[in-house]
């Protein structure tokens, strides 16, 4: 699943470690999310949306024919 986490983080000039701290996840998890190698759980996706004050579909772009990042 594609996402705009990297762009939204860059707009706020946060480091990956700062974003990780705000979401209470590890820095590796932020990196895996930004490189689109890991799709977050629904609660984490909502936390990200709330932190960036955006609806989910403005952060995560789901394309029906793409394989899941974490099968």
């Amino acid at each position, binding site marked *: 699943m594609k996402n705009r986490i990297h762009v939204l983080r860059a707009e706020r000039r946060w480091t990956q*470690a700062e974003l*990780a701290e705000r979401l*209470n996840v*590890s*820095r*590796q*998890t932020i990196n*895996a999310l930004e490189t689109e*190698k890991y799709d977050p759980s629904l609660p984490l996706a909502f936390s990200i949306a709330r932190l960036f004050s955006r609806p989910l579909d403005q952060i995560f772009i789901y394309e029906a024919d793409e394989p899941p990042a974490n099968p």
Partner: protein
Amino acid sequence: MNTFTRLNPDQAHRHHRLRVIVAMSIYAALLLGCVYFIKHQHPEGGLLVALALLPTVPVIWVMWSLYVYLTQADELQRRVHLTSLSMAAGVTAFLTLTYGFLEDFAGFPHIPAWWTFVVIDLVWGASSCLLWYRYK
């Protein structure tokens, strides 16, 4: 109820890694000490049993540390560790079953049961590294 300090996932991982390094260093020291003492002093009875079990004490600490870590880890850390642990359990079960048959039916030399611990740890470590590499 949590009886330990709540840490963020990165801190929890660092603390767990440190505890494992300390515990396994104590384990190695105890193992060498116990083997040396048993070979040279030839203790018997309860003391011998206690010395044989002594090196497992730090392993209990590692298991507790893993439990604490998994309760404080984030969803990806938990996924990687539990997936690699499942892979390690499966591979170790297959290897011990296979070698058990070779021992019993084909006369292969006996391997002590504690090798299971070594194999599961090695496969766990290797599969954990592979899974983290996948998410990099």
